[in-house]
């Protein structure tokens, strides 16, 4: 009995510190026993596909949040990229479309990064402005009309599957590995943690904090563009309003995963759990027959619960 007390405390600490993963595992077990259709291969593939497109941008948003910032304009870069990619696919072909869209997304991100890192304008103001203007630009270019494409190569890529898994989850996996390696095993990745943890201390330690912040926004711009192109691969259309909930989704997934909005800690592996939890939750609520209105309520409830859980864990650690 005396020996079991520390073990019990360890288990409780472990459960609290990994609460989201524990909740996810528990929820999956609950669903497997409640709904037989949840664990069918088709549904598992559906969950993977559903989480992949926004997941790509969520990985990059995590890096921005670790650096102590956030970006509201990712949703507009996403919408713009669906438009540009579709237009380019219809004119110059898919290879040119890919590189132009990616470069354009990175350019938008770099513009945000320059204003935030160099000019020192708050990210909220900068990205709010670019969010509105990029969306406006997409409306102007398309005369507000949605456009679609019948590009044969794009269609072939969209129909390409490896064991029912489309190309989008494969791209998502590559992005996860890239960001995981970048944050954990490169000096630049560690500089981003230091910049987000304490900006002044990082600057005085010789870290190029301006460059770090500039680069995280550029990476997010490129990732949002890549996500927009993946949406184009799946839906074969582009329109300015597409992905308007992307920024909020990415921030939500990052927070749920356990990365602090204050910066300096967290990781892409945590965000992957957050993205997966959201996808499983959306899917499960649909399978459980929950109406659209109730789904919104439950999603909000999960977010608040996880944030509260995080606050309890932080308090426990301090004590």
């Amino acid at each position, binding site marked *: 009995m005396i020996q079991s007390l520390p073990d019990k405390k360890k288990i409780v600490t472990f459960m609290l510190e990994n609460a989201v993963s524990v909740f996810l595992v528990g929820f999956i077990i*609950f669903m497997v026993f*409640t*709904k037989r*259709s949840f664990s*069918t291969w*088709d*549904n598992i593939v*559906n969950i993977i*596909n*559903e989480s992949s*497109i926004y997941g790509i941008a969520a990985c990059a948003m995590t890096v921005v949040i670790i650096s102590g910032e956030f970006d509201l304009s990712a949703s507009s870069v996403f919408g713009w990229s669906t438009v540009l990619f579709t237009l380019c696919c219809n004119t110059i072909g898919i290879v040119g479309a890919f590189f132009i869209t990616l470069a354009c997304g990175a350019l938008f991100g770099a513009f945000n990064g320059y204003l935030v890192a160099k000019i020192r304008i708050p990210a909220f103001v900068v990205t709010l402005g670019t969010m509105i203007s990029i969306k406006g630009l997409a*409306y102007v270019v*398309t*005369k*507000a*009309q*949605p*456009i*679609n494409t*019948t590009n044969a190569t794009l269609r072939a890529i*969209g129909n390409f599957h490896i064991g029912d898994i489309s190309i989008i989850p494969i791209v998502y996996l590559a992005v996860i590995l890239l960001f995981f390696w970048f944050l954990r095993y490169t000096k630049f990745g560690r500089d981003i943690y230091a910049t987000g943890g304490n900006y002044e201390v990082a600057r005085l330690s010789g870290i190029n904090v301006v460059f770090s912040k500039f680069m995280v926004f550029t990476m997010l711009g490129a990732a949002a563009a890549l996500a927009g192109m993946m*949406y184009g691969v*799946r*839906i*074969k*259309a*582009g*329109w*300015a*309003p*597409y*992905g*308007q*909930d992307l920024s909020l989704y990415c921030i939500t997934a990052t927070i749920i995963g356990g990365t602090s909005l204050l910066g300096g800690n967290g990781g892409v592996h945590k965000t992957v759990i957050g993205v997966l939890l959201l996808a499983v939750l*959306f*899917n499960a*609520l*649909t*399978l*459980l*027959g*929950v*109406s*659209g*209105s*109730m*789904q*919104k*309520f*439950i999603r909000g*409830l*999960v977010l*608040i*619960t996880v944030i*509260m*859980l995080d*606050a*309890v864990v932080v*308090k426990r650690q301090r004590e």
Partner: protein
Amino acid sequence: MKKTFLIVLSLLLVGTMVSAAGKKEDDGAKKIFMSSAYYTAPYGAPLQEAVKEKAAALGYSVQIVDGEENADKQLSQFKAAVADGYDALIYWPGDQASSPPLVEYLNSTKLPWVALNTVVDDSVIDLVPCMIASDEVEIGRWLGRLIIKYFKDNPGKTKNVIYIEGSPGSSYTENLTIGVNEILKGSDINILNDHQYAQYDPTKAMVIMEDMLTKFGRSIDLVVVQDGGMFQGAYSAIQAAGYVGKLGLLCQGQDLIVREKLLDGELYASVAQDPFTEGALAVEMLDKVIKGETIEKWVATPTGAIYAADVDKYRWF
């Protein structure tokens, strides 16, 4: 305090999930699944209620989810529904351009399905078993006819109109404007403003109307608004500026505010687009598809002018 709050939240979450999971499905009833791109739109709520009512009347159970104007999300929702063994599907698309992959997927399921409200892309329209939608251009034509009739009933020196539209790029908005322009072509009616989009948002419509009143003031003879929700916003601006009764008002829709202003004599007329009929028709047509009966490829929701004397003939929301 934090711990207590967390425990309460967790219990609430678990309770909600368990009650959702524990819902009994109707024994033997066929299950219909509907993904609504405009779940939270004012027009969506009565339409979805009508779907539920009609489905219950015909002995079906129905689940309606929010597609959030996101074709990718709608595709995932349909895939989840198919995995869960639903018997029939209703698809309310968000826009035309993104509809082809969904239409192809829905056909690949071999399940009975119908499309509702937003007309799908031309490239796949022949692949849809049944499209239940308003003839949007015809609604626009009715607005045009009422504009002409208004000036016939209220002759003046000028025929200046402010015209407030819905969302840029939305097929509904565009088609209404096509219908209006078709009727007004060659007339001496003058639309004062360029395209002004309030995006079906009453607040945006109010701001646009305030700007229009500032810019054109007493030279405005008639204000035309593309839907009842936006009419509410525009009316607030007109009322605040003291212009009620000094200019004509015309809109489309069956919102309660429209009924109220028709009865007050402040609104000249409205154009019918009945979400209740549209929702009920969708389930009726789906029922016929399920039973293998022959149906028309396009079922149009009835439309026409509504005057104050007609309000009791319509349902309002």
